């Protein structure tokens, strides 16, 4: 019996990479990104993770601009505000979208050649989020634009799978925007399904976080071609120990939906909050896991941080992951 522990995506980059990320020439960049990936994987292994993701996304600056820059048909006019004085480059779709080059093949080639003893999972920004975070000057509707992104992501996943070759490849579709427009869940459904359709040999994950209504996702689970749902919970939970876990109430609902299906889906439970430096003690994480196990069969449960740990220092990120693994080991003693 095991409870799989997994990374979600990003991890803080070492200074030698982050401070010069956008100014390095391609040779220097590759050298530093590879070095940072190996160092991060080493940290993940020391923490005891079963699945090391893609090694902390050292090849990527962020999740939107990285893929968008590799697609024809998108013009970036400048930054728009995310909050306070933080901005992101929001692209404008001005003509038909066509993939220019692969988003993540460099990462996967590197991992294929350098990681033999751990599972990996490739996060890819999802079609709905790419659509929602872009201006649309070309497509007739938001559905049409989401499906255009969906086709490109499908093409990208095929390419990654070809590089990976034999053996199952885990693909995680990141959709932080999935529930921001409750009346567009049909677009989420069609575009996510389109992005992974007719590709053999992949295990599909969906990552959604900071949603105000997970039920919107739960309602479409029977129709989504997703095997594992990696969701954020710790951020909405209290930080003192105890049997009551107010942040984890939605797990019961997930389980109820699962009960209605013959092919069961797994849930990656966010047990550590990536937005605070407070390192959750092992006992607190253990309480969260044990609460979740009241509703989930252990074979359907995975453990992960709420989201990528890029906003925490590498030291704090490591300790959070290590405590998650230690808590899992404590729980396993009683299972």
């Amino acid at each position: 019996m095991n409870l799989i522990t997994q990374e979600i995506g990003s991890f803080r980059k070492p200074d030698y990479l982050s401070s010069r990320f956008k100014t390095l020439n391609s040779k220097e960049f590759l050298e530093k990104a590879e070095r940072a990936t190996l160092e991060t994987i080493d940290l993940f292994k020391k923490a005891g993770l079963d699945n090391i993701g893609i090694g902390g996304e050292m090849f990527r600056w962020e999740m939107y601009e990285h893929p968008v820059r590799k697609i024809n048909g998108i013009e970036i006019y400048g930054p728009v505000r995310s909050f306070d004085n933080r901005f992101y480059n929001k692209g404008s779709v001005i003509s038909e979208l066509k993939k220019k080059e692969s988003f993540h093949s460099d990462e996967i080639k590197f991992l294929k050649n350098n990681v033999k003893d751990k599972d990996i999972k490739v996060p890819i920004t999802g079609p709905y989020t790419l659509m929602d975070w872009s201006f649309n000057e070309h497509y007739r509707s938001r559905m049409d634009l989401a499906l255009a992104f969906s086709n490109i992501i499908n093409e990208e996943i095929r390419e990654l799978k070809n590089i990976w070759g034999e053996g199952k490849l885990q693909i995680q579709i990141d959709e932080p925007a999935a529930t921001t427009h409750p009346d567009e869940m049909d677009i989420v459904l069609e575009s996510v399904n389109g992005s992974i359709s007719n590709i053999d040999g992949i295990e599909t994950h969906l990552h959604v976080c900071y949603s105000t209504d997970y039920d919107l996702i739960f309602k479409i689970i029977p129709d989504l071609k997703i095997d594992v749902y990696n969701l954020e919970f710790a951020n909405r939970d209290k930080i003192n120990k105890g049997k009551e876990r107010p942040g984890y109430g939605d797990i019961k609902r997930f389980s109820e939906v699962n009960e209605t299906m013959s092919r069961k889906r797994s849930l990656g439970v966010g047990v550590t909050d990536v937005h605070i430096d407070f390192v959750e003690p092992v006992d607190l994480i253990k309480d969260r896991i044990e609460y979740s196990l009241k509703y989930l069969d252990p074979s359907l449960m995975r453990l992960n941080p709420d989201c990528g740990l890029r906003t925490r220092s590498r030291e704090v990120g490591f300790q959070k992951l290590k405590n998650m693994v230690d808590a899992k080991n404590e729980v396993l003693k009683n299972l």
Partner: protein
Amino acid sequence: MEIRSLIYGLYPRSEKVRKSLSRWERNMISEREVAELMYEESQLYYKMCKVNGIELCSDPLFNWYDILRPLSLSIEGITLGSLTRYKETNTFYRMPIINDIISLGEINVFRSLKDNPPLPLYHPNDSDYLYFLPGIESFIKMSRVRGERKQREDEMANIYNDIIKKYSIKSLVIYEPMNVSNFSIYDKISPSVEILLVTSGKVDQNMFSSLARKFYSILSDNPYVVSKYCKIPGITIVDAFNTHLERDALEKMKKYKDDFDEIIVTSNEYLDFLPRIIADRKIEMMGSWGR
């Protein structure tokens, strides 16, 4: 038919402002320096509006971290809550937590704030200056409110009257970003102020029932619905959520020419959701409509 354009609310920051604020956040430049830059950049913005023929422009609010923040931080009884999604956008604001709205702090002199660049709230440029405030009902809707909402709305109206008095405000743009059931709260605002009210969503007559006030302008999706409640109707015809330039808008507005002598055009949201270069182009385009 005469067409005038209105630019309101937070305007996208220039690269210079973004970089300076970033340096200020890291204590690399002083609050005084950043306050001076906000003033200078505001004056450049007014100049740009004037050159392009925009007759109605409120403060660009370059030092506002979100549409509610400086007010929240200036009212005793309100604290800042968590980052919260602004409507269905990918932009976030700090949700005000309203306990008791007690009194308004200093807003029109240099003052340090925690969690926002320093005040003053506005950077006027002349006596015809157009002030800006977020809508009262939206402010309450976008907050976590302890106590009775209606009472908090009334208290906010009092605060707005204090602001009007402190600044001797004659003209004021109020933007209600949320769907509002009724605008009668504005009967509590000093009648001496000319208000341009920008609304969101679809307007209907019920929203104005029992309203005694006549606004200077109400800008909405439908000028016919609002025309009897204001002197000059307005239309939110420019899309602040798309970089596409509405070059056909003038043609679309021709349908109003037999019904109104004058109309004010504006955007369906303040322009901060666009890259600066596109917002500048939209100003140029809107100014050309008047000509």
